[in-house]
């Protein structure tokens, strides 16, 4: 198959890999607390994602701190300018 060929029916069927690849496995459960907080938030908000985005930001922040994820700017992950997001909340939880 040639790279960059005009799209055809086969190109449309390919599943595309994720942008950043794969999360490294959290074998030691280092970020499990943040994960449980996120899951609790989801349960309380009937699985709506918007109120819990701060928690997901904290979870990803924990991953970045513990070296389980490449550190990157929040805007590249779509988590910049969240409501209810403050430095004190982040520092408190991580």
């Amino acid at each position, binding site marked *: 198959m040639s790279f*960059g060929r*005009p*799209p055809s029916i086969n*190109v*449309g*069927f390919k*599943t*595309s*890999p*994720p*942008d*950043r*690849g*794969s*999360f490294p*496995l*959290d*074998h030691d*459960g280092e970020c*499990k607390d943040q*994960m449980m907080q*996120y*899951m609790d938030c*989801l349960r309380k908000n*009937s*699985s*709506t*994602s*918007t109120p819990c*985005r701060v928690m*997901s930001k904290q*979870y*990803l922040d924990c*991953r970045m701190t513990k070296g389980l*994820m490449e550190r990157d*700017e929040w*805007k*590249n*992950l*779509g*988590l*910049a300018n969240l409501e209810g997001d403050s430095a004190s909340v982040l520092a408190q939880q991580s």
Partner: protein
Amino acid sequence: MLSRVMTTKSRPTTPLNGSSRPPPYASRQSVYASRNRNLLMYSSAVIVFAVGVTYAAVPLYRMFCAATGFAGTPNVGTGRFEPTRLVPVEGARRIKVHFNADRAEALPWTFTPQQKFVTVLPGETSLAFYKAKNESPRDIIGIATYNVTPDRIAPYFSKVECFCFEEQKLLAGEEVDMPLLFFIDKDILDDPACRGIDDVVLSYTFFRARRNAQGHLEPDASDKDVQKSLGFGDYEMAPRAEIRNAQPGKSP
């Protein structure tokens, strides 16, 4: 042919008045010579130009398609994950993403989603978790594939980071949480075919991993099962080249 024309000498004498005008009756050969030269120059130029255009056509076509989106050229690469695309569309309808987990029978793991569904806005990056536990007494490397239904949402469903397509090694008896960061592109709001979509099912299947002839890890299952996990179970698939060439005269 040209040299022959040049060597014959039957030019008339130079005029006495010393003007530099060519003599009125230039020889036929020299006229033909200059015409042939012209023709050769023009032909070579046309040939070189045509060859150049055929070489340039491929990149030019790609550039044209990428710029105009002609024939549905998709917007792949970092363009899809630019920060401006990762902003939730406030006030748009919410889409419910259901999570499904499967595993191959040969894999002694328990693999379950930690939430049944999440309702998301288009353009909003959301986190979801799966849990996997290795029930066997040995370390096992697994590899996951995924697929999204309905098919029409597949171009808009993008994963920023996940746990699929790469090997995941679980030690014996280990349980681990696997996160997944995804979003639904906001262009779905402009697509009339996707107008009625409110529910999406994201389905992951874990297989045991094995190394293929090139040394890459791939799912240790029949091609049919892997394609089914990718959502192509209803499509007839031609056998892969490795299988075709390895067993001549036999169909897999």
